[in-house]
């Protein structure tokens, strides 16, 4: 895939992560229950539509899969950072900048792995996801 398409994908993902974080923060502020499963389905669907418009026909399955993993690697850190910052600065919620979700198995796995150190888990997860995005970028570029 051409570099400009990957950069455009990154840009769209960053904007999507920020918008999603804003909406999620608002739902949390109003104490509404957020369905993470439905949210994930919605995000994957939007990512699929964006990819469909960017990739040429016929689509190659490995390229689609790696592009989705690339988008996930960018979405994760941006969404996590934006969500915490919006909750802290706009809704004045008393949480640390490194706050992680309590229901997600992924968050719990990293927290357990780092013996409950939330800051270390936050930084590790963010670094890990950015490295995933970098690994996919190198394989998607010709």
């Amino acid at each position, binding site marked *: 895939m051409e570099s400009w398409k990957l950069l455009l994908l990154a840009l769209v993902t960053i904007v999507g992560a920020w918008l999603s974080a804003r909406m999620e923060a608002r739902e949390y502020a109003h104490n509404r229950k957020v369905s993470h499963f439905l949210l994930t389905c919605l995000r994957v669907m939007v990512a699929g539509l964006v990819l469909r418009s960017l990739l040429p026909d016929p689509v190659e*399955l*490995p390229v689609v*899969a790696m592009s989705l*993993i690339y988008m996930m690697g960018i979405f994760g850190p941006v969404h996590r950072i934006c969500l915490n910052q919006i909750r802290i600065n706009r809704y004045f919620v008393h949480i640390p900048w490194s706050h992680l979700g309590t229901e997600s198995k992924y968050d719990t796995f990293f927290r357990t792995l780092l013996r409950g150190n939330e800051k270390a888990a936050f930084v590790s997860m963010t670094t*890990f996801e950015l*490295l995933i995005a970098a690994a996919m970028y190198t*394989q998607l570029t010709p």
Partner: protein
Amino acid sequence: MSFFGSLLGSVVKVALTPVAVAKDVVNVATGKEADATKKNLEDAVDDLEDAMDDIT
């Protein structure tokens, strides 16, 4: 390989994608070339195509 063998090979390779991604992360972090995910997914698609050829 038979239809079921090829199909099973494809499913196993798709299931092993997270391992390939983790290997690529290590490769990127250590400055080596990352190509495990691409190879793994391409092999999975090849196996799937073989399985389709077997039944047609």
